């Protein structure tokens, strides 16, 4: 794209983005069409609509730009996912743009791998090296020796990446992220026949029963559900939605609950079925809904016979009374909603437990109803078995069947080492990274072709399960690139062009923008009736295309052939005597899976539950800690069958005595000055699979042992450890 057209587009975007008064737009439009040296009005900010890329939720953002510099990110009020709201990670995306340790231009490795020694090269040389490697593969008839690793891409970028790989002739395109909802898609497919993610109408619900679904901090679309939660609580005049949280650890989400049921890890599915049985046996189920889904109450009850209250109480370690009470409340306070989350899914019996929880929604008639759960139209399909694909790629790399790996993202940090990924990657002769920071993956690379920051990029952000409607969020550059970087898709296109032949023919685009514009207009224009000339600019002004729910929307309906969910006895890796405690790893509120760790605002943000800053920690029940002689902030060693690490301990009243928990995100070897060498990565402890046949990952099925090392944990909390228990003094 030419500079002139960029400026024109930006200028026009400015018009729409001036939220406060659109009528004043014209006078503010002019300065940007005239070159900046004449026309910048100091102190007058311009707002550009774009989309957030900090997590898969894809919220809409407005970026305030002053004198050519991005100053502040705000939520886009028009965007149906986040309705003008934004989370901490979204706010901090600004620092990704202006991070002082960004890779300023392409780098070539000049020392051993992992040493961090690189020499600066030009883009011409960098692209030459990349295409040289690709050509070598073609020459050696080893096109399938190319691997492309990306996060889970959606939309046009996914098409582009897979198109590149297909035309090049390699099957090894892996879209993997640790926390993506493959499990939810496969569970939904097993029960309802389609891999649509559920969209929960939380705001209209009167009773929420969340099983380890951390929708405030990480589950699916945190800002959307955080907002919906607020509305569920206090937006309606007479109704205050009730919230019960089930989970072995009282998470940030759980902290807002009215009632907490600390069920034993792995027992959530059985608990859900126990509640289902109780609802059926007391005839509290919605018979119409059962009939509509082809299920009969009596048969169902008979088949759930094993899940009688005493047994479920024993399995879950909860009092019978609470279970029954919650089940009755759930069945009678309609519309009610059951939500299954990662904590449940990453157990050995996770997939079946998730289905058991989904069954609860069916029982109370919450499928496809206001206040209930709908299929998400925006992301109807997506990867369901990416973990298995990861494992097979690891096998390929280990078997020296991969000679060139192109990696976007930071899998070296976010894939548990127990999968063998890191060791296998070391065997790949040539690794190209597209990281914009020298992260753990880039440190292992031979060539770094730095990507733009999100605020410099064109792109598309299709929200993950954040709304019922079809939404295409658009990303546009809000500032000129700070460094000599290029967008990942543009690099792919450039490489394709250089390679020529089949690859170039499959991707005949001058730039990613061209492709993006063409494809977006193709999909949107007929629906919205926009013409392709001004349509693009108006889409950019708005921040994307926000569709409406059509009448022909999909619904959830129980598959006739679907078996009833049957969660097995949970299994755990590690001998119970040697490793007496369960370990839960959970996405940190600030860093998600680690992508936020490089940003100082997020490092400085006190973790909401522990108020720890700039660190990682182990959460342990006060009673358990006392038994092990562990005090607040002590350094402890956590060991599993897989490995061990040292980190400070937080005495955490909201966790089962048989469980310890560590947040994800820290423990990076690279990632710039703010993340490097900070905290520990709990993934090092995890056992990947309980046995080879397992297709789903069970990150929460590892057992550990905790030993006190010293009192010097070096942990810093903003909350006073004793004062945190003295709310009586302020009478709140």
């Amino acid at each position, binding site marked *: 794209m030419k500079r002139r057209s960029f400026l024109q587009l930006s200028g026009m975007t400015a018009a729409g983005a001036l939220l406060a008064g659109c009528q004043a737009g014209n006078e503010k439009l002019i300065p940007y069409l005239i070159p900046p040296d004449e026309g910048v009005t100091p102190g007058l900010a311009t707002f550009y609509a774009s989309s957030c890329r900090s997590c898969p939720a894809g919220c809409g953002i407005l970026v305030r730009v002053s004198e050519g510099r991005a100053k502040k990110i705000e939520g886009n009020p028009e965007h149906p996912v986040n309705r003008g709201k934004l989370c901490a990670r979204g706010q901090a995306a600004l620092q990704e743009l202006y991070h002082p340790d960004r890779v300023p231009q392409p780098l070539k490795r000049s020392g051993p791998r992992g040493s961090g020694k690189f020499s600066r090269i030009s883009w011409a040389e960098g692209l030459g090296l990349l295409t040289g490697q690709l050509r070598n593969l073609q020459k050696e008839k080893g096109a399938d020796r190319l691997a492309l690793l990306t996060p889970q891409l959606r939309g046009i970028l996914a098409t582009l990446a897979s198109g590149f790989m297909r035309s090049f002739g390699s099957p090894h395109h892996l879209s993997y992220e640790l926390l993506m909802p493959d499990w939810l898609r496969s569970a939904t497919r097993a029960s309802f026949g389609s891999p649509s993610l559920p969209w929960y109408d939380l705001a209209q619900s009167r009773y929420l029963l969340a099983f380890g679904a951390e929708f405030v901090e990480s589950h699916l679309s945190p800002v959307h559900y955080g907002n919906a939660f607020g509305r569920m609580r206090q937006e309606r005049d007479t109704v205050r939605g009730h919230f019960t949280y089930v989970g072995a650890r009282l998470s940030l989400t759980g902290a807002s609950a009215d009632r907490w049921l600390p069920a034993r890890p792995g027992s959530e599915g059985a608990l859900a079925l126990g509640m289902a049985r109780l609802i059926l046996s007391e005839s509290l189920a919605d018979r119409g809904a059962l009939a509509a889904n082809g299920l009969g109450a009596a048969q169902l009850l008979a088949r759930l016979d094993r899940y009688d209250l005493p047994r479920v109480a024993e399995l879950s370690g909860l009092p019978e009374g609470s279970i029954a009470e919650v089940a009755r409340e759930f069945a009678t306070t309609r519309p009610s909603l059951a939500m299954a989350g990662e904590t449940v899914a990453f157990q050995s019996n996770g997939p079946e437990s998730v289905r058991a929880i989904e069954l609860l929604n069916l029982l109370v008639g919450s499928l496809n109803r206001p206040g209930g759960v709908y299929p998400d139209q925006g992301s109807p399909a997506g990867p369901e078995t990416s973990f298995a694909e990861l494992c097979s790629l690891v096998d390929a790399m280990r078997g020296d069947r991969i000679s060139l790996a192109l990696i976007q993202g930071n899998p070296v940090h976010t894939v548990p080492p127990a999968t063998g990924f890191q060791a296998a990657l070391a065997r790949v002769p040539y690794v190209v990274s597209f990281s914009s920071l020298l992260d753990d993956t880039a440190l292992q690379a031979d060539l770094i072709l730095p990507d733009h920051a999100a605020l410099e990029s064109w792109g598309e952000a299709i929200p993950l399960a954040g709304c019922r409607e079809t939404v295409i969020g658009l990303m546009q550059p809000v500032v000129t690139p700070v460094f000599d970087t290029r967008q990942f898709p543009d690099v792919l296109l450039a490489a394709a062009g250089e390679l020529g032949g089949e690859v170039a023919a499959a991707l005949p685009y001058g730039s990613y923008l061209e492709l993006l514009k063409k494809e977006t207009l193709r999909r949107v224009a007929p629906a919205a009736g926009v013409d392709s000339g001004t349509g693009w600019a108006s889409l950019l002004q708005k921040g994307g295309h926000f569709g409406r729910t059509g009448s022909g929307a999909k619904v959830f309906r129980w598959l006739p052939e679907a078996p009833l969910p049957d969660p097995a006895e949970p299994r755990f890796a590690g001998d119970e005597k040697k490793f007496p405690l369960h370990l839960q790893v959970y996405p940190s509120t600030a860093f998600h899976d680690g992508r936020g760790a490089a940003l100082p605002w997020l490092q400085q943000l006190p973790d909401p539950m522990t108020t720890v800053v700039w660190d990682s920690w182990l959460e342990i029940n006060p009673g358990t800690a006392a038994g092990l002689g562990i005090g607040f902030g002590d350094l402890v060693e956590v060991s599993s069958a897989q490995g061990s690490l040292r980190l400070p301990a937080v005495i955490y009243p909201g966790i089962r005595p048989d469980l310890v928990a560590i947040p994800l995100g820290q423990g990076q070897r690279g990632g710039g000055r703010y993340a490097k060498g900070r905290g520990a990565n709990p993934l090092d402890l995890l056992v990947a699979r309980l046995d080879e046949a397992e297709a789903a990952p069970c990150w929460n099925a590892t057992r550990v042992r905790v030993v006190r090392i010293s009192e010097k944990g070096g942990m810093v909390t903003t909350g006073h450890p004793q004062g945190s228990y003295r709310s009586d*003094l302020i009478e709140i």
Partner: protein
Amino acid sequence: MSNAHPTPQVTRPPTAKSATAVNDELLSSLNAPTRSWYALVALLSAAVAWGLIAFGWQVTHGMYVTGINRPVMWGFYITGFVFWVGLSHSGTMVSSILRLSRANWRRPILRSAEAMTVFCIAVAGLFPLIHLGRNWIFFYMIPYPNQRGLWPNFRSPLLWDMTAITAYIIGSSLFLYLGMLPDLALVRDRSHGWRRDVYALLAMGWRGSAHEWAVYHKASTLMAALIIPVAVSVHSIVAWDFAVTVVPGWHSTIFPPYFVIGAILSGVAAVITLMIVIRRAFRLEEYLTALHFDNMGKILLVISLLWSYAYFVEVQTTWYAHEPIEWEVFSFMADRYSWQLAVMLIGNSLLPIFTMCFKRLRRCIPVLLAVTMLVNVGMFIERFLIIVPSLSHKNMPFAWGSYSPSWVEISVNVAALAGFSLLFTLFAKFFPIVAVTDVRELEARKAQVPLGRAELPSLAVED
């Protein structure tokens, strides 16, 4: 000696000395400095210089070099400030009150007490400036006319502080100077060369006429009467720095009298300490006798009892009302600072009360030295325990914190002590440290005039 006190023809008691002898002895401190004096000055100067370096470090780097933080925004500096303001009550107490109450035994220690007042308050006055985040614009706090019409905030206790301290510095300096006039004349008459010129200038032409003496006595009495309310107000205002806030543990009506009593306690103790030091340094055993120590010990006893009462009142109201946050502050203080609390209670209350009850102990110099020094250690701790625990556990429990002083704050506080000692050492070398004329006046009063065969007191005054 011609223009000193008009002396009647007297015969002295057997022990009495000639005027010249008295002068010689009392002014011996002005003799050429010895090597040990130089060593002392060098040592003290080094400590002051170190403090200045520490302060310079703070100014050039930022307040982070101190130990203060959120929520404990005041620490050792303000502790030092209150402590030195307290010490400055020595002069007022000893000279004014005893002067007004005509306690004749006050005379030999009067000068040093007054000098101590001036130096203490001067040192104290530096602390609020040292502790500023931006010391270089301290003058914003001074009400000077300016184009923008910006004035300081007269509602702020800090401004009251500044006013009161300035008034006290001026008042106590005048008080010191006024009392020194006859002595300066005396020194002038005994010195030569440029020194004589300097002392002549300072003596302001004092000749010792009867009229001058009459005015002098009137002025001294007036100043003594005037300086007492100033002294009381200074420490009341310092107490208001704390008492007018909403900080739990500070917001207390007992604070002003409690602070004044505390100030007098530390002042009296410091005077006794100083008496012992001067007596030894300048060989004044004949003038600072057991009687003086006995009397000062009695005062110490009374003040210590008063202080104990005030402390008891403060604590028992907190305990009785049991207001949650107030009690929280107190329990935190008793828990976290238990040994400091113990030292404070022993030093300020138990020990002085016990020892000063006994005449033998009151007259025993080593005991007195130990007790009075411990009193001031206790008083420093008392100031610290008032300031820091309250701030550490303020109203919002989540934002509680703690404090420990940094090397910079400790250095500056040590330098303050050294600076005070240096000023005093220099003063003692250049000015008569014992009020010569006052002492001689006393000698004169003790003297007997022969009348026929009888010998009668020279002056018809009651002692």
